[in-house]
């Protein structure tokens, strides 16, 4: 499996309805490991970015308040069929993931 992100994009007129789901542990840093009693280190997405034809259409700053395996949905105007929509995230450990799809 190449990417741990999924996107579903629906275009109606020039409005694009974007739904996305990504796999990420989103550890708050406040949770204890039930076996060892040690705190599980903080590990969460810090920034989620959607670009349409390389132009940012949505940038979200995440913190610990977002649940594990986040689901993110939004709409934006001015989209056309054939546009390249790219989603990417970076987390506090510097890891990244991305996925590109074509609007239709």
């Amino acid at each position, binding site marked *: 499996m190449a990417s*741990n992100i*999924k996107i*579903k994009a629906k275009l109606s007129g020039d409005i694009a309805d974007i739904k996305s789901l990504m796999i990420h542990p989103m550890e708050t840093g406040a949770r204890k490991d039930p076996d060892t009693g040690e705190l599980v280190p903080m590990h969460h997405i810090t920034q989620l970015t959607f670009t349409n034809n390389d132009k940012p259409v949505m940038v979200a700053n995440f913190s610990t308040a977002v649940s594990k*395996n986040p689901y993110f949905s939004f709409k934006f105007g001015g989209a056309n069929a054939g546009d390249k929509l790219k989603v990417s995230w970076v987390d506090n450990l510097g890891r990244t993931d991305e996925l590109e799809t074509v609007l239709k």
Partner: protein
Amino acid sequence: MEKAAAVLVLCFATMLMHSVALAGPEEDRVAFVAFFKSRFPDIPFADYANGIYAIDRDAREQWLAIEDFPPYEFAIERGQALWQTAFPNGKTFGECFAQQQEDIRAMYPRFDELSGEVVTLEMAINNCRTANDQSLLAYDEGGIVDITAFLAFEARGKKLHVRVPDDQPGALQAYESGKRFYYSKRGQMNFACSDCHVTSVGQYVRADRLSSSLGHPTHFPVYRSKLGEMISLHQRFAGCVRDVRAKPFALQSTEFRNLEYFLSYMSNGLEANGPGARK
């Protein structure tokens, strides 16, 4: 007075034993379905496969929105990859099963005459690994749950048809033992499965409504939003047993497998619609 009461109790007990002895699995199932029909006359039979969302209209809206983009899709993909990966000897999971991929899920749980016990889908998967000299997959880890998610997805729309063969006395014993488990009080709370999921079905426990046992096994494994991961039917059993403050049995223990056998028989005729998404 006390004596009269005791005689009455004895009378009831004998009647009860008598009726238990007479009723076979099919009579049990018909009565089970009839109970839910009388409790919720407006819910069509097929809708019970949707679990609590057949009963709780508000939660159903949220669930339908989640089903737009189901969180279990990743698990199906992981499961498919595991299923298709060949063992070192070149064989695959598929070769262990006589049925087509989409028919496997609905075959289980089944009573195996040779071993004299109920075989669940999870067990069959691990039996296949043993047959190919592979180590067993842990029942509380993702791998095996993902495989069952994939098989459940393939089997969508097939109806459950669990059988308790007449010519195999062990099968009826396993069924009866599962039924006894289901109706037995346990834990500090002194609850039987049926207390919540038959007698009080649809009522609130704190903020949630109690689901109907008719349809319980159809949609597993499920992605639980509160955990952010997939769980098997037996992990859910263990959760329920813990909730009534009893010590859960091991996953895939005889007790839980017999319970699954009984519950699945009760849901015969409903569509397998797993994997599911649950709160």
